[in-house]
């Protein structure tokens, strides 16, 4: 079990209904974690276009989750 904090950006925050949350997870990678969250909250966006930032750096979804990570999921934003 790893404790991480998740932040949601833009439309993901609205879909989740929370700006951030602390979570215990057994997922190995952020890809697994996002898929799991998607099941609960129906983000309705393909994972291939979601960016993930771990500890203030953009990362690959394959990155292994480490206890204490601070992660943000970022959907594309286009308004102007």
């Amino acid at each position, binding site marked *: 079990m790893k404790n991480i904090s998740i932040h949601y950006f833009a439309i993901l925050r*609205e879909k989740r209904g929370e700006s951030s949350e602390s979570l215990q997870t057994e997922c190995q990678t952020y890809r697994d974690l996002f898929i799991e969250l998607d099941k609960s909250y129906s983000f309705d966006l393909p994972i291939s276009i979601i960016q993930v930032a771990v500890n203030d750096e953009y990362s690959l979804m394959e990155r292994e989750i480490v206890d204490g990570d601070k992660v943000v999921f970022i959907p594309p934003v286009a*308004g102007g």
Partner: protein
Amino acid sequence: MFSLSEVAIDRDRCSKELADQSAGALVSFEGWVRDNNQGHEVKSLEYQVYEELALSEGQKIITEAKEKFNIKDALCYHRHGHLHLGEIAIWIGTTATHRDDAYKASRYIIDEIKLRLPMWKKEHYLKREAKWVFCRDHHTHVHFEESDYYFRQEKLVDQSKLKNAKVVVIGAGGLGSAALQALAGAGVGSLSIYDHDKVSISNLQRQFLYGTSDVGEFKVDIALKKLRELNPFINLNAINKAVSEENILDIIAEGELILDCTDNLRTKFLIHDACFKLSKTLVSASIYRGDAILRAFDPKRSLGCLRCQYEETPSDSHIGNCNDYGVLGANVATIGMMMSSVAIDLLNKGESHALENSLLINLGELSIQKVVNFKKFDCPVCLGDVEIVNLGLEVSGDEILDRAMTTLDIRELNEIEDIKVEIEKCDGEVALYCHRGFRSLEVVKGLREQGVKRVYSLRGGASTLVKPTSCHL
């Protein structure tokens, strides 16, 4: 036309000289001989001019007015010789489609004439001796000095760097309206503006360059007018054109720094790719309600690009038909202003914290999170190795949906003539597809050479045709 007249001026004849069925407004100004001046009763007046000088200076003023304001025509008659009380000393008429221009040009001409025309006036008074006075007006019309304009920022920027800078702003909507005001105010010497929309009533709550009387006009026309009024010391270039694969490289080439103020991913990636191809600095932002992402890229440094950060290039159909998400003027203008802060830092110092990081700005929580950009070392876009032209021939399955294209399966059609017949039957843009997308690309190239413009090839072929996703909240 500027003329001098020794006989009485006929206002009706003058007005008729300006008659123009495409004009909607005539503003005329008449200067009359008054019966008193500075407390002295006046009987009559005598004007003496240096004719040659007055004619050339007068004509120059008229020409300036035509350049500065969007008027149809301008006409000025100036009397000289002996004038009686109540006579017309000067008549100025300006015509324009809309009254604002006619008023401004009229005011400009009279102010400049009073200031610059070499003209002496002899006043014949009732109770004292006649006196020659050189006609210099109260300076209602101030002559602006460039250094006065920038006085409050002289300690903060190297003004010559900004003056020599060429910036292209794509999109004059919410982000663009704000950014353009700040860049014009800062004195960016050459500012090119691209947009292809008209001002609509629903724009006004956030696009503060425009007002109710601009609704229905092209944004670039109004932006030009408003920014010229904001700063007379910069070169403005406003083009009513949508950016496309065909013209993006030419547009980007005009500037050293590009501001992406557009509102769709397709154009954003196009601008981004073109900036990397031509090695131009880019400042880009997008907003969703109170959340925005602000980024700057300098292709000359190896700091990664936007495509490094995505497994797949997101398309507008991914984020859905969510044009109804809503946006507040206060929020989008904050981000537009921040874009210009970043741009000015880049022009002035070559540095910005937005270069290596993406800024996740949350205006609800009033926070900015910096995320260090990710760089793929083999990214072709970073290396400028991207074929913009092919982008113009190929489309993705998502783009077919976005652009509501008709699709045409060419797997059973072996002759180009047969394909042309089928295309004739379709409305609008047509996307050809084959099994893998290779043959359709060749067919599209061939058709384009034959002048058929509205055809595209589905990149990746039949299997990539997609169903729409939605993002209803």
